């Protein structure tokens, strides 16, 4: 029972990460009907950019080397106490999320926009190209090895300490942080899309791009926004992933990317709440399966779930039965 609860907790943590990444897939698919294959690379880039920002904001030596010595007083504040740490995280998320979001917008502008009226295979292949390019760019120009996700003194950014105990299960601060932040971001995005004007424009565009354009919605702006929000959330998941597992590598995006896509499909691709639900479900299923069946096959289990869902309920749990328009 204790073991089951532990696995459930791991699953929910993992699920939070999947949900964040899955939102990016679902946002883009809802509007463009494109599987943004390069999205997993946004998750990876997030891990790297986040590490850089974290180091610049917390490590005096690093900042001095980069010519950002004036950050000194801010670093002192960031390194002192829980409030400083919270602000350090928040700043990192905002800065790296924006940077990766901009990368996402650039890929959209150059790799997908010229293909908007092409047959559906063309943008998919283009997306695979972007993904391969980004992965190997990081390998060649940053590092082909694992980079440790640690402070200057080699300690983890979030110390692995138990925050509280529920039913005998120890909940670490990292897990609380991941679950709380991802839930907050998911809620925020949901409110943004359902309550604001630009959110309404996004929903309209995903229902019918042409009609939305005729009603005065700036389609290019909406699509660019989707390509900003998705990668930004993916980047935050990438930072969490780095902190949780303690390292980043150039190919770290591939498997979580596929799994998050699976999560989006489980929930019903194109459906935001579905992606969140799917993320948590997949995280839990994977953790339970790896805990009780076989850890070596944990990735296989996620792929099997994907295949089964696509075969038996391609519309997903929350998606309606998809009918193809002729």
């Amino acid at each position, binding site marked *: 029972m204790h073991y089951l609860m532990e696995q459930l907790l791991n699953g929910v943590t993992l699920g939070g990460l999947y949900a964040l990444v899955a939102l990016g897939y679902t946002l883009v698919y809802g509007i463009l009907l494109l599987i943004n294959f390069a999205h997993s690379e946004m998750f990876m880039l997030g891990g790297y950019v986040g590490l850089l920002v974290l180091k610049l904001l917390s490590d005096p030596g690093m900042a001095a080397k980069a010519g950002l010595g004036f950050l000194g007083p801010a670093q002192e504040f960031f390194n002192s106490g829980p409030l400083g740490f919270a602000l350090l995280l928040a700043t990192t998320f905002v800065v790296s999320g924006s940077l990766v979001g901009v990368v996402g917008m650039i890929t959209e502008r*150059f790799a997908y926009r010229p293909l908007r009226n092409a047959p559906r295979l063309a943008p998919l292949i283009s997306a695979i*190209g972007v993904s391969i390019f980004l992965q190997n760019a990081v390998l060649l120009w940053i590092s082909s090895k694992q980079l440790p996700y640690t402070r200057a003194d080699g300690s983890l950014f979030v110390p692995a300490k138990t925050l509280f105990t529920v039913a005998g299960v120890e909940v670490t601060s990292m897990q609380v942080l991941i679950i709380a932040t991802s839930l907050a971001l998911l809620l925020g995005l949901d409110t943004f899309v359902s309550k604001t004007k630009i959110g309404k424009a996004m929903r309209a565009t995903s229902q019918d791009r042409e009609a939305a354009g005729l009603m005065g919605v700036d389609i290019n702006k909406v699509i660019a926004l989707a390509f900003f929000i998705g990668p930004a959330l993916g980047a935050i998941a990438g930072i969490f992933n780095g902190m949780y597992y303690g390292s980043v590598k150039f190919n770290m995006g591939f498997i979580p990317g596929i799994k998050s896509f699976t999560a989006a499909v489980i929930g019903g691709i194109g459906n935001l709440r579905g992606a969140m639900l799917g993320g948590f479900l997949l995280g839990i299923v994977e953790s339970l399966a790896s805990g009780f069946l076989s850890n070596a096959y944990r*990735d296989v289990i996620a792929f099997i779930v994907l295949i089964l869902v696509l075969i038996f309920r391609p519309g997903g749990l929350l998606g309606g039965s998809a009918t193809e328009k002729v």
Partner: protein
Amino acid sequence: MARPTVTERAMGITKDVSAGKKALYAALAVLIVVVPLLFQATTGLGFLVRILVIVGIWILLALGLNIVVGYAGLLDLGYIAFYAMGAYAGMLIGQSFNHVLGGATYWVMLVPGAIAGAITGVALGFPVLRLKGDYLAIVTLGFGEIVRISLNNNIFGLTNGATGLPRGNEVVVPPIGVEWLRDNIRFETPLGQFVFHSNLYWYFVVLGLIILSVILINRLDDSRLGRAWAAMRENEIAAAACGVNIRTQKLWAFSIGALSGGVAGVTFAYVQQFISPESFTFMESVFVVCIVVLGGMGSIPGAIVGALVIRGVPDLIQGLAVAGVLKLPGETISHITSYRFLVFGLLMVIMMAVKPEGMIPSRRRARELHPDDEAMRDDEDQSLWDVEHNQRLSNQKP
């Protein structure tokens, strides 16, 4: 000119071929035979034959995937799984029977390898072929990973995990003739000593397989099945309405493509005399897709030239650098694979925007990929008008 002969028809040459083109083809044929012999004879260049063999296997793979992606229009991102199934089936069964089969092992193993590939193709195809383009791509990707992870985890105790096959105490028997040719055909040439090395043997085996595949695929493209694929990829609903059984045709494309992947896999296993899951990663699948897409979807010369350029050129640079002919810093050599992926990633993006039909496009596929082309639509309208016009004329006659 005279009617095409039976051989010409079998090779798909139904049109008259001009004398100039004939000379070109003849020159190409001579080149294909002579160049590896020259490489083998020249001291220090023998390794190039080896590279040609590997490139040849990639041509086989590209031709196989071309059936699935180019003809049937189904994006398969897990194609390497069929290659892996062929390689492992050929190796596992071969190792249990090589004391009986001896030098015939490789040749006999082509059969179970091909069957293993085809069965996997059908097994995967049956449930997933209802899916549309991009969903199918993801599912095939997942399937490819499932196969690789299972091989890596020594599934059923058969595959020896990450260490690969054959197991430590086993040897792979070279096929009939390799030893005889090596021991008996050797003589001095002005360039160096010529030995009929096993690489040359494999070169001609792979060449034979490529020629066979090209002939078969060419005939397939012209058959009822090929026409059904073209109809299906252009408009599935219209094709179904015209009586094309979509699932059966897709299944055929999948299994034929998988079958040739299996054959390539067995050949790879026996050429290398060693296989491990590392040779069957997602990146290898992407590589084959790159070759087919950049070469030209649905185009046989495209797949061949694609493999030569995309696989051959970087391998050549790497080979020359390792052999010391080309001076490159050590770090660059070890990163050639990454550099080529970097370039191919970029090329895929640019190609899709500029020339989605590839380097050597199939004419029909090029038209499908440029639906907005004004001139093309005029052409089509004109041809429709021509048909109607001719019909009207023929109706008036009686």
